[in-house]
Every structure is written in C-alpha cells, then in structure tokens.
C-alpha cells in the first residue's frame, strides 16, 4: 500500500533521522549491524519472516471485517455460564473504548492509580455483597479456573487430611473438566456425583466440595444440609454461583458455604466467544491471606487520606515462588471494572429488577411449554428452564437453529433454554410456538405427568 499510510511509521516512535542519531551515538552503522552486535550469531535468523505484506489500517480493517462476517450471530439461549447482556453505552464508550482505562498497567503504583483501584474495590464489594462474604478478590481468569483455584484454596486452608474433592454433577461441564484436569497433577482425587451423597459422610471423606447454584440444568437447590454435613467432616464447601441470581436468592454466605466463585460476565460484558470476562472468588474474612490473585485494599497515605492499593503484595507469587500455590498474575481487571460499573449503573434495586424480569421470562417460558404437555426437569429455577424433550431433542434443537436461535442440548433427552436481560417477549413466544408446532405434529394426546407439572417456583 502507499507508504504515506504505513502503520509501522506511526507505530514506531523514532524517525529514520532519530534512528541514525542513536546508532551514531552507540557507534553503529545501521540497524542490521547493530542487531547483529546484540544477538548471538548462532541464533540470528537468516530469512525474513514469511508473513503477508503490511496493510494500511483501512485495508486491514476491511479484511478483518470480511472475516468477521463469516461468523453468524444467532440469538443465544444456551446459557451455560454465558448470557446475553446489555453493556450500558456510557460504559461502552467511556471504559471499554477508552484508552485511559484499557491501556493502563496493573496498579502497583497506587499513588497514580486511585481511580482504577477504586473501581476494582467497587467490584470486590459488589461481589462480596451479593455472595454474602466479607472478602472478594479483584478477579480471576474465568469461572472454571476460579473453581480450580477455589479447590486448591480449600485444600490449603481446610483442616481435613483428605485428598479427595467432590464435584456436583450438576456443575457446568467445562467447570468439571477444568477442575478435574487441575486436580490431577497435584494428586487430588476428584469425585463427580449427586450432592445428596454428601448428607451422609464418613470422617474426612472430602476436604472440599464444589456445588453449583443455580445448577447446570437451571435447578435452584438449597444446599444447607449438604453444607452442614460437609463441615461436620472438616470439609469446606465452595459454591459456583451466578451474581444476577443472587440478587433474588439466599446467598452462599447465608447458606453457610465457605467460598463462592463464578463469572461476572453477564454484568455488561459481551459474550465474545468465551472471553475475556472477570471471574470472582469470595470467601470468609479468615481466609483473606490465602486468597489467590490480586486484592485491592484501603490504606492511608502519609497525610492520612484514604488511599487504595493492592493489598498483601508481599504475598504475591513473585515473592513466594516455589512455595506459591497459585500462579495467577495477569487477571481480568478491565472486565471486573466494567462489571462493577454495571452494578453501580443499575444500583441494587436496578439489578434486582433485571433479575426479576429474567426470572419472569423464564417462568413465562416454562409455563407456556409445560402447558403444551412437556415436563420440566425442575420446577425451581432462576433463568434456565430444562425440558424433557426425549426423542424430540434433536428436532427441537434443529428447528430452533432454522429460526436463528441457539438452544442447548443438555443431554440426549433434555433441552435447556436460558433467559437473560436481552430476551424479548417475542422471542419467548417464538420458542413456545416452536414447541407448540412440534407438539401438534405429534399425534395422540398430551401425556400430562401431573407430578412434574409446572407449579410455584421460588
């Protein structure tokens, strides 16, 4: 492309004159000679990298736009930890698209990072409030790795001598995969099963248990019993949870759990094909010094002004090194900040209203489908409705696809549908109609299984 628009000329801060000046000062003829003097000869490459030629900014954007168009945006009702959300435009433009927020470095230099630190402590407070714990960190990489980190935290701080860890089978499959994979090299034995097993445990069976609330299938279950019995045998309980649901539900803290983890994605952070999003971890005061990741705390400056800064830096892994138990360093600050601002933008009452509206959408959907004779897997849910679709599973899924909607095949006999902030009444109607059309096609009368008929949900 025409070189007046060469991006490299803009990206590189030194002009050719500057470069010549510096080379001269250092006593070299040109950049090549200089580079050869810096690098060992035996590793210096001979050939140019085989990359395509430089493109101008406009050209590259055009090509990438074409590539992006190969993605097709369907309406997603998949859920499974990732939900449609509305990024408030004021946050979009002034945080997400603002170099003042996105370029900056980890706020190690507290004196020049008060805004960023305050935004992160806002995130921590929000997470703490919703999960019912005293303390939360300034983000982890994603929900699944947060779960894995919480397992090792429980291992570390718990009193049990057990090397076994229990995972609720109703956790998201990706969470189960990541936690299981993480357990293996460090010799933790993982059991995946129904949490009901936990109510009757021998001594020190599990050092910890990971329960999901609401579950993978959307069910909302009170785990108080399981927690009591886990505690009784010296185990800790971790709950993987959903911040939006928690505006309406009893919090993990209230329920007696020891740690809560999850993702804050649905607080205004786009799906983005999986990331980046900020995961969170919250726990009790007494474990604060063992929490992985960064933690923003309040202190004072020399004149006694309130001053935020990264707390417990001496604890950071570059100091602990081989004694470290987590390697997390770069986390998800920008996304945590966005999620925290989303909460501040809506305020507690606004968040609750969003949650209520999501729940009533799910209720409406459940009711509509249930009345057509489909049974629900659980009648107590927040945003996700799981339906016994049995032999029709594949057909329903495909029909929805034809209408540019993604439902979720939970397993061969179940479809899950997740509602979120962006779901419209029209869409609920469309989904219901899809089930209706199918059920009409089915000959014979509806099988109404009374036991599982739709009834009051939380």
């Amino acid at each position: 492309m025409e070189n007046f628009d060469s991006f490299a000329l803009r990206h590189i801060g030194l002009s050719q004159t500057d470069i010549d000046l510096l080379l001269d000062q250092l006593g070299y003829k040109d950049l090549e000679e200089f580079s050869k003097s810096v690098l060992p000869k035996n590793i210096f490459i001979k050939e140019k990298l085989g990359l395509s030629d430089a493109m101008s900014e406009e050209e590259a954007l055009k090509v990438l736009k074409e590539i992006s168009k190969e993605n097709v945006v369907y309406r997603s009702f998949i859920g499974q930890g990732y939900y449609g959300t509305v990024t408030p435009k004021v946050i979009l433009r002034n945080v997400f698209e603002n170099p003042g927020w996105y370029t900056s470095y980890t706020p190690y230099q507290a004196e020049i990072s008060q805004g960023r630190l305050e935004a992160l402590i806002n995130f921590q407070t929000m997470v703490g409030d919703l999960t019912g714990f005293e303390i939360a960190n300034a983000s982890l990489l994603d929900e699944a790795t947060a779960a894995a980190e919480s397992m090792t935290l429980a291992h570390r701080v718990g009193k049990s001598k057990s090397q076994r860890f229990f995972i609720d089978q109703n956790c998201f499959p990706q969470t189960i995969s990541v936690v299981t994979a993480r357990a293996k090299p460090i010799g933790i034995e993982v059991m995946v099963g129904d949490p009901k097993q936990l109510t009757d445990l021998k001594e020190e069976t599990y050092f910890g248990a990971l329960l999901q609330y609401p579950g993978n299938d959307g069910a909302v279950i009170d785990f108080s019993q399981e927690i009591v019995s886990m505690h009784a045998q010296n185990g800790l309980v971790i709950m993987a949870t959903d911040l939006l649901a928690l505006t309406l539900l009893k919090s993990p803290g209230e329920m007696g759990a020891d740690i809560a983890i999850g993702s804050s994605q649905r607080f205004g952070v786009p799906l983005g094909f999986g990331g980046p999003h900020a995961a969170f971890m919250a726990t009790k005061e007494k474990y604060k010094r063992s929490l992985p990741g960064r933690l923003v705390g309040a202190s004072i400056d020399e004149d006694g002004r309130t001053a935020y800064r990264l707390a417990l830096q001496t604890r950071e892994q570059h100091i602990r090194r081989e004694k470290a138990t987590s390697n997390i360093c770069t986390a998800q600050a920008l996304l945590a900040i966005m999620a925290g601002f989303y909460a501040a933008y809506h305020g507690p009452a606004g968040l609750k209203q969003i949650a209520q509206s999501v729940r009533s959408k799910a209720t409406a959907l459940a009711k509509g489908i249930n009345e057509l004779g489909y049974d629900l897997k659980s009648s107590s849910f927040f945003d996700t409705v799981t339906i016994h679709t049995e032999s029709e599973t594949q057909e329903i899924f495909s029909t929805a696809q034809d209408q540019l909607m993604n439902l979720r095949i939970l397993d061969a006999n179940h479809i899950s549908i997740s509602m979120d902030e962006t779901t419209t009444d029209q869409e609920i109607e469309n989904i219901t109609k899809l089930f209706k059309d199918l059920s009409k096609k089915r000959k014979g009368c509806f099988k109404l299984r009374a036991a599982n008929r739709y009834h009051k949900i939380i």
Partner: protein
Amino acid sequence: MIPLGSCTMKLNATSEMIPVGWEEFSNIHPYAPYDQTAGYKILINDLEVKLSKITGYSAISLQPNAGSQGEYAGLLAIDAFHRSNGDQQRKICLIPESAHGTNPASAQMAGMKVVPISCDKKGNIDLEDLSEKASQHSNELAAIMITYPSTHGVFETTVTDVCKIIHDHGGKVYIDGANLNAMVGLCKPGEFGGDVSHLNLHKTFCIPHGGGGPGVGPIGVVKDLAPHLPSDPLKYEPPSKNVGPVSATNFGSASILPISWMYIQMMGASGLRKATQVAILSANYIAQKLSPHFKILYTGKNGLIAHECIIDIRPLKELCGVEVDDIAKRLIDFGFHAPTMSFPVPGTLMIEPTESESLAELDRFIEAMICIRHEITQVEDGTYSIEESPLRNAPHCAEKVISDDWQQKYSRSVAAYPVDLKGRNKYWPPIGRVDNVYGDKNLMCSCPSMSDYQEES
C-alpha cells in the same frame, strides 16, 4: 512513557482495538454450533500461522488466558510427553534464580519439583551449576524454564548450550516468551532450542494491559509436543491421557485476538523486525545515557543489552539510604510511571522503553533520572537527609506543596517542578505516598459503607 521492564507497555493503536467491539466478534456464544463461528476459525487459524512463523514453533494453542496459564499448559505438555514415553519419573524442573515468580508457581501446579539454578556474576545462567544439576537429575529431568532474552535483559550467548545440555539429559526446554518482543524478526525460540514457549499477546502483540488484564498467553510447541496441547473443555473426558483444558473455553479470550491480528497484519514482516530493532536500540540509548550516573547491572555481548536495562540502586542505598521506592515515587513528580521495581533483582529498577516512544520522550525520561541522581548526590552530600529529601517525600501532591506551612528543606518548585516542563501538562498525583504496612495490618477490602460517607460530610 511507562517504562516497565518485562511488562512491555506497547502502544495500543485504535485500529487494533476497534474490531473487538464488532458485534460479529462480541456477540458470539462460546458454545455456539461450529458452523456459526467460521469467522473466528479463520481468525484463529491465521493468527496461529502468524505466531508460528514468528516463533518457529510448529503448533500453537490460543487457549491460555494469561501468561501464567500458558506456562502451566506448556509444562503439562512436557509432562504428558514424558508420560507418553513411559517416563513418568521425569518431574524435576530446573529454574534459574532470576525467573519470574509465575515460573516456579506453574511448575508446582503441574506437579513438578523445582530445582533452582544459580546465575554467575554477569547474571547469566551458571553453566557449571546447570550441567551439574542436569547430570545429577538426569533420569528425573523433565524440563528447564528459562527466559530469553533473560530477565536480566541480556541475550545470553550460551542459550544454545543450555538447550543442548537439557536435551542431552532427556529434558525439554521451556522458554518463557514474555520477552519475545526483543526477538520478533531477529531470532526464533522454536528454532534455537526451545520446545515450548508461552507468548504474552498482552505484551508483545499489543493487547492492552487493562489495568491488570485481560491477557492472552498462547503457547507454541515443537512437533513432539503438539499432541499434548490443551484439550477442548467440552470434549475432555477425565480418564483420558490428554492434557486437560486450562480454561473454560477452547480459545480462551477469543474476542481480543483481533488486536494482535491487526498489529501483525499492519506491521508486516519488516515492520515487526524494525520495531524489535528500534526497541533494542532505544533501550541501549537509555543505558548509555544513564551509565555515567547509575550502575547498569548486566550487559551482554559487546557491552550491549537487549530491550531492557536493569539499574542497580543497592550501592546508592548503602551510601545514603535511598530506596527503589523513593526513585519510583519521585518519578511521578516528573510525570512518569515507575519502571519495574525489584524484579528480577531486589533493589533494582528495570527499564524498558518499547519502540513507540519518541526521542523527545526518551530524553525526557533520561533527564528525569539524571535529575533524581543529582538529588541522591545531595543526600550523600548531606544537603538534606534521606528523610528530608524530595525523594522520600515523593510523590508531592498539590495540596501538600501548596499548604501554607511548607517545612521542607527544598523549595516547593523543586518538589513539583523539578525540571522545566516546556509547556507540557503537569501531572498531579491525587494522594501522597501510600502506607502499605498500615493497610496490610488493617486489611479493609471493600468500599466504605454509606454511613462512613455520612459521617464525613
């Protein structure tokens, strides 16, 4: 300028950032059916090819969400390789003392045992110590983790020897790619002896730091290790021999990959190479200009450094009590972010300019450092004690400088305008030096409650 050694603060050009907001990238569910995500596949494949050409590795995984996760994934790949060869006993991981803290931590998580390797006086890996440890653990040797150019900011000339020693003992070489920005276009870790590297796309490839994330820490591996890259989390079955997933979605933080793609596409091969050369040139310029005033801790071949330069504050501390922190905070008064502090060597500052800084900015930084050195001299002289100095009292916030009872031995203008700003805006820190010890003793990690605000007003 944010001259952070090792942490590489690249320019984040707007054209790189814009595609992240496109609905076709931002509004795709990670588990959307395959045929809806063809655009992502093209982007990912192309980026993998690009990174592979740049690093010399034959396969890339974009799954890791950060450098640390990349390290972990890389070590798991090495471990799986050994296991697949029946060498389950290979669990020893050699790590030089100067390594980044995430290296030993990752090794730990991967179930390896860390054996430290010492450095010689020039800061290079002590080849003798290395050979000895490698022989000693020959049968259990899993890997070495080195950083290249080293965390000391030097292209160690012995790097190929190091690799050879490890390979000879059946181990694999993990090259931490956090410093890849000093290699792009000049050398390839996958060619000169590395078996795995993670790259920090949030350093070398322009993904912004975001105040501490997001990041992307892909790994590149040689052919042998390619079968052992992280698995798709939705396809992983626990009893399998595969390395499991390291993150919740197959392509980690996919939506920010366009940033790095755009950067590479717009720079082209020659732009990338030139960027590397200019970054190294600027670092050497700074080193040369600062060397009469500060001790440059390590240099390599021809007395040159790589893309960053460590200056040693310990001798000055001994002389007059000045701390690394004092310099870091004093730089704020000049309008600079501090360089990396006390990494990899306690009591030092590590300066990395990157290729995007203008000459004027480099000179401004050098001027500030020399001015600070002069202030240190004044402490040595006894003009004031360290406690009385503008160094210890930095940063100077406006309220303090303006307060009616100024009692410092130096003037207000020395405090706030130590050099002529030549019309540039003065940056004012909102607060003075933070008391970290107080905060850690009285740990308070949530916002003050509403009632606290009420009390105040």
